[in-house]
């Protein structure tokens, strides 16, 4: 009876999965491997190698690596500081860093527009300080900055979670054995936070690679990433659903490969705290 009850409770979720995940996935698979005439083809999947698509993919990869790098460089020291603060029982400040995650993502990106526009806040501030304006709007730099800002919390939290798990005694033991601050950082804290770093990298790298909204809003159509290519395949005047599905599938393949790496490292499950 218990088993039956559990199955009934799982029912709605099963239906949800079927209707919104499994069936669409099968449709994508079907579309990816057929052409408009309904015949089997590998062309849509292989289209990722076409320079027209490979260019944006390569750009996406470079930009997402840059975004991930910026997030990591900023997040690790911040997570260290947050660890220190939270050990002093001041969870309010930790909260302040989580709060932006709850704010609408479009709003956050629009805010960057206002900052980076040619007569935006940044250049107004520079003007007041009598400095030359910087024209960042509609550049890769703008997209990288905006994306890094949006995904920053996804880097901070897994690292923070890994850091707070490190026993205070372990750090004190290292100190006791003669380790200075840098040795403790390099040989104790950093290695023990690797699962969190891997989680953070995956959670920033994967979504920022297929990002297209930020590229549109801050790149002004001049920054053309693989996400934009796929979007165009579905939405533009000369839409080709089959091509879009094929490209999506190829991208998914790349993501699955990185997920395997993710599960390999993230045994502690630091990333799960986010979901």
């Amino acid at each position, binding site marked *: 009876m218990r088993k039956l009850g559990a199955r009934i409770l799982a029912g709605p979720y099963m239906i949800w999965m079927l209707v919104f995940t499994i069936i669409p996935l099968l449709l994508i698979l079907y579309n990816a491997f057929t052409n408009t005439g309904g015949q089997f083809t590998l062309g849509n999947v292989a289209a990722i190698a076409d320079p027209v698509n490979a260019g944006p993919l390569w750009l996406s990869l470079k930009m997402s690596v840059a975004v991930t790098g910026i997030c990591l460089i900023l997040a690790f020291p911040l997570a260290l500081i947050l660890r220190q603060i939270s050990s002093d029982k001041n969870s309010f400040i930790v909260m302040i860093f989580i709060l932006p995650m709850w704010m609408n993502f479009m709003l956050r990106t629009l805010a960057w527009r206002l900052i980076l526009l040619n007569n935006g806040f940044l250049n107004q501030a520079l003007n007041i300080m009598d400095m030359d304006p910087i024209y960042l709007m509609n550049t890769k730099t703008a997209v990288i900055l905006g994306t890094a800002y949006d995904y920053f919390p996804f880097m901070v939290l897994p690292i923070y979670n890994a850091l707070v798990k490190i*026993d205070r*005694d*372990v750090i*004190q*033991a*290292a*100190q*006791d*054995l*003669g*380790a*200075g601050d840098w*040795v403790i950082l390099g*040989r*104790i804290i950093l*290695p*023990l936070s690797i699962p969190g770093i891997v989680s953070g990298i995956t959670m920033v790298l994967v979504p920022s690679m297929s990002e297209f909204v930020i590229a549109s809003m801050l790149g002004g159509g001049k920054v053309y990433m693989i996400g934009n290519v796929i979007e165009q395949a579905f939405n533009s005047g000369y839409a080709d659903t089959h091509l879009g599905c094929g490209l999506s599938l190829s991208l998914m393949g790349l993501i699955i490969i990185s997920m395997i790496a993710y599960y390999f490292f993230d045994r502690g499950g630091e990333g799960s705290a986010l979901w």
Partner: protein
Amino acid sequence: MAKKLIDLIDISKSYGNKLILDDMNLYMNENRFLTLLGPSGCGKTTTLRIIGGFETPDTGRVIFDGKDITQLPPNERQLNTVFQKYALFPHMTIEENIAFGLKIKKKSRAYIKDKIKYALKLVNLDGYEKRMPDSLSGGQQQRIAIARAIVNEPKVLLLDEPLGALDLKLRQDMQYELIRLKNELGITFIYVTHDQEEALTMSDTIVVMNQGYIQQIGTPEDIYNEPQNAFVADFIGESNIIDSVMLEDKLVEILGTRFPCVDVGFGRNQPVDVVIRPEDIVLTEPSDGILQGRVLSGIFKGVHYEMEVEANGFVWLVHSTVLKEPGTQVGIWVDPFNIQIMNKPESEDEEVEVRE
């Protein structure tokens, strides 16, 4: 003449409004097994952490081997700590754990290898070099923690309740192991525990602490046989502590009855605390006792029976290998030598002025 190795001078420490250590003075001699013993919150761990450098005292100085090290960080102190929860580095093999301190000191590869071998032999864990800490039992991890500390040849080893997480049998084995280690290494051990049996078994010197004050310093025998005050008597072993009056030298009135004793110098008609250990009470025929009473209960405890005997309105705790059935009328007799007289403290947490 033993050399003074560590000297704590006028140490005070508080957290917020809570005073943990109040103007403590304590010195420790070289090559001793010294135990800080007391209930939780008595300041024993704080004392250890001040010596280790993990806490800085609010006032006072820590002198180590003639040098003031009060402000020296832990990594620059010539002593090592064994933590209660082992605190092994979980991402390193046993070998790497033990080598950690030596690598920082830039010792040669051959030297480190020899030391690892020596240390593992010392703690009876040869062949564990390549294992990871989480594949070891609690007792084994604790021994690795000790090995990791002693390869650095510290002058002092600080141990913070290192056996607290182990089960009874393992704890007893480890107690002997620690005594053996201390004798083989010839270094000073400073040991923190709340377990009086552990303290009595291992120590050369015991420092009994309560509420931030040192209550008594002495050998295990001194502490057990001649507790300085009711707290020590109560904390170390079981005891009967009775309000009494010292009538004159060598005569004390306990519960209205006169008992001969051996203590002198308390004055005449002076209120005192009397401690009589349960195993020092001899149950006799009613006519042969100094007091007459009735057995209330008897429980078998393994080595002895534990009985409660009511006499003169006080329930006496008695240990004996012979059981007197509950309800039996008995006499109570105590050897004058086994009656321990203590001055009444002026306040609950009065400091006792005794040094080693």
